[in-house]
């Protein structure tokens, strides 16, 4: 059932949500010495929102899995050690105007976080967050969401999906939480919404992204299974600096490190921090032996984990085609180029 909401209606809705004490996360313009950017931010009022503009430069990951989160605090006393869990329940939050690639990523990572052990450090924030997506109209040459099963207007992972139309947005409630949200703030929505007057820019964006990359994920996956030692891996790693900025910017990369941080002789905190397979430290043994000695093997691991291992085990490609790894790379690495080479080699092989 499709509602519709005007621009002013949305602003009023956001202000009401903020007033109710719920955290609102939305794309906002941030001024940096390196120029202006659109980033997901905790916003204080509706007029801070910037629902159009450049592609959002960060992802939603820092809000569901912060770069550093305390697991528990420990205190060592004569009587023994006492552990006290970190900060309490996560704050209720509403994400408004998120891109489809960022939201699909949350659902993809849910799978590994629920594999046998339920990771409530992830799900605590995940369950407290209602996600309202906005169909994307700002793709660039690095976007390839359509090549990995997603798209500018793909509803996956969103509780409510907004699609731009003249003077406002169409709103489609897709999940129970979404329906509850629309009911709770029903006063801001108009009942009827006709899918026809959806902004044509959305379709144009989809066509533009489709020209960036066309690959057969299944062929690449089977090619990867059999070509661990293929010589094409040797020239991917040369220009890569091995910093891991791609993994930190990536909405689906979820690897982490667990570190103890003493804040004094007797007490401290155990923290979970973002980590990346692109550094030597990730796999080096205490004896000094490192199964992944050079950068080529680490890039192979990153591509294999995303396009062969994760799909094999969880059924989803661990990539939503957002293109951030290409935009942040200082060495000029390009995942679209790597996938094209793999796609060609897969065809040649089969």
């Amino acid at each position: 059932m499709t509602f519709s909401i005007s621009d002013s209606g949305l602003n009023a809705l956001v202000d009401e949500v903020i007033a109710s004490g719920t955290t609102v996360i939305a794309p906002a313009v941030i001024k940096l010495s390196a120029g202006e950017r659109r980033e997901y931010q905790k916003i204080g009022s509706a007029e801070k929102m910037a629902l159009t503009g450049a592609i959002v430069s960060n992802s939603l990951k820092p809000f569901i899995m912060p770069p550093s989160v305390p697991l528990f605090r420990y205190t060592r006393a004569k009587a023994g050690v006492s552990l006290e869990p970190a900060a309490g329940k996560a704050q209720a939050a509403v994400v408004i105007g998120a891109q489809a690639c960022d939201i699909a990523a949350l659902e993809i990572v849910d799978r590994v976080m629920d594999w046998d052990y339920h990771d409530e450090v992830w799900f605590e924030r995940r369950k407290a967050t209602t996600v309202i997506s906005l169909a994307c109209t700002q793709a660039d040459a690095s976007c390839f969401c359509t090549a990995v099963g997603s798209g500018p207007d793909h509803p996956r992972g969103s509780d409510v999906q907004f699609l731009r139309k003249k003077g406002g947005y169409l709103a489609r409630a897709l999940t129970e939480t979404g329906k509850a949200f629309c009911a709770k703030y029903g006063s801001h929505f108009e009942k009827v919404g006709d899918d026809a007057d959806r902004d044509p820019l959305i379709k144009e964006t989809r066509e533009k992204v489709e020209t960036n990359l066309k690959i057969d994920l299944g062929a690449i996956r089977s090619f990867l299974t059999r070509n661990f030692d293929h010589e094409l891996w040797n020239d991917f790693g040369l220009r890569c600096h091995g910093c891991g900025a791609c993994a930190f910017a990536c909405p689906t990369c979820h690897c982490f490190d667990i570190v103890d941080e003493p804040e004094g002789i007797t007490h401290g905190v155990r923290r979970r921090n973002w980590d990346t397979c692109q550094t030597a430290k990730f796999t080096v043994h205490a004896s000094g032996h490192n199964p992944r000695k050079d950068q080529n093997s680490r890039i192979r691991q990153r591509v294999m984990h995303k396009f062969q291992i994760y799909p094999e085990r969880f059924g989803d490609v661990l990539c939503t085609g957002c293109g951030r790894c290409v935009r942040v790379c200082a060495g000029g690495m390009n995942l679209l180029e790597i996938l094209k080479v793999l796609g060609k080699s897969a065809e040649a092989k089969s």
Partner: protein
Amino acid sequence: MSIYQPHLMRVDGIIDENPDTRTLRLVFKDPAMAEQFDFRTGQFGEYSVFGAGECTFCIASPPTRKGYIECSFKKCGKATSGLRDLEVGDEMGFRGPYGNSFPVEQMEGGDIVFIAGGIGLAPVRSVIWNVLDRREKYQNVTIIYGARTTGDLVYKRELEEWSRRADVKLWQTVDPGGETCDWKGQVGFVPAIVEKAAPSSKNAHAVICGPPIMIKFTLPVLSKLGFSDDRVFTTLENRMKCGLGKCGRCNIGEVYVCKDGPVFTAAQLKNLPPEY
């Protein structure tokens, strides 16, 4: 309680196996936890020293002995140095048990050959005692254990005990040049001694653990003796952090070592990419 929060343990006993290897006997601080804690031989855990971090070791004591767990380690990093500084009565943390285990039930009714090198005896010891505590269920038990020098041998008292048992065939060896004048055991690398011992592979399984170089040269000897690859079990030692399949560190090929391992058959090892 969060899956990352360890159970609090008290150090109940410390045994120095050799100058750089130590075994800790740990008891659960919470008696209820001590009661209901159970594990299968071959599983590992994350041992926490608060302020230093966590490290990954197999549980070296057998599941047939209740009320405590043991781990053996060498001091070579921040967390193991923290472990080394612990004294009896100090408190630390333990998360686990994690991973799969040696299929001791499947091995019942046949022979078992245990092969270990250096500190690799720790995971194998758990299986050995698990088998010896239910000795009647198994046929011949052969143990082949080697170390670089006599000083590097671990679990010396238990080696003594095993050598006196009639129902266990124990071969002890040290690398050439590592023996002392009163050394009565074999002298030679483990693969050579396995060839010498030549255990029969009829209805037999093998459990092997030790430095990669030893495994690399012992597997061919075992297959020459007739052991098929799916009857040879080993435990893989690689870098881990969470131990429960989330942090991505132990992912090799399609396998998460902390979930699908650490126990693998030689057959499984063969089609893993060479990244361990």
